[in-house]
């Protein structure tokens, strides 16, 4: 691409001022994140409470790896055993492991989890996933070890 430039600048006073301004913003962000903070087990309990039956990890695995009448399965991007990096099926961008056992940042933010279920179920299943499906998939993902 056209731009050719040097990438590194020394730390300056404006950087220090910037950090001073940024610190409260970061604290606020952290506080907001904590409000949605959860563990994978918490989230599983929440989905299971709304589900039609007890979560079933085997069902979760088949739901995750099967296609649902459309081009992609969950596994198309996350891989059939998501303890390793996945790869976006369209763009090729690397995706960090989805299983919490391999990536402790996964399933720790309710809003984020719901956002991705919304987007990805729409692509894979063509509708919102049910709480039963979410609970099954999460129950399976929690069992995976790197």
């Amino acid at each position, binding site marked *: *691409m056209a*731009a*050719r*430039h040097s990438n590194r600048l020394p730390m300056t006073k404006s950087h220090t001022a910037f950090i001073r301004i940024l610190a409260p913003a970061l604290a606020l962000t952290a506080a907001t994140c904590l409000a949605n903070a959860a563990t994978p087990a918490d989230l599983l309990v929440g989905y299971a409470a709304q589900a039609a039956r007890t979560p079933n990890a085997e069902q979760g695995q088949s739901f995750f790896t099967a296609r649902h009448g459309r081009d992609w399965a969950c596994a198309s991007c996350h891989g059939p055993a998501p303890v390793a990096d996945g790869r976006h099926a*369209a763009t*090729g*961008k690397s995706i960090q492991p989805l299983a919490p056992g391999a990536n402790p940042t996964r399933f720790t933010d309710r809003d984020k989890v719901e956002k991705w279920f919304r*987007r990805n179920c*729409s692509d894979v299943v063509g509708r919102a996933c049910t709480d039963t499906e979410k609970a099954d998939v999460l129950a399976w993902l929690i069992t995976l070890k790197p």
Partner: protein
Amino acid sequence: MKPGLDYAALAVATCVLAFGPLRAEAAERLGRSDSATAYRQECGACHAAFAPGLLPPASWSALMANLPRHFGTDASVDPATQKRLAAWLDSQGAAGRARPEGDRITRSAWFRDEHSEFPADVWSRPSIKSPSNCGACHRGADSGVFDEHDVRIPR
């Protein structure tokens, strides 16, 4: 004019003179504002967080109005985030650029020019997969750095 204002005017003038040329070079960087952070999170999860200056505001506006059907995938965000990112992209988009076919960066004339030395079989390598996979070759793509010296074409 008060002396304080003189100094302020001088400071502004100095900044413009000193950093004006840098602005063009930094056009592909995202910056660190809250909006840039939200943009990286919401958009940069599936593809490189394409620098807003790579498309004109009209393209960004069309893309942001249609996120649930975004090049074949659901890229929807919550309404507040949608509004905020749309406004940010509108302000950061490159007003002078022509709107490319399908609002695809990779269909822009300048994109084709910059990449004209690479034949189709390079793009289709499994390690690259798609022209939209900037990070496959531009190692600084995630931070909006597309310096030629940072390019490595994978086998």
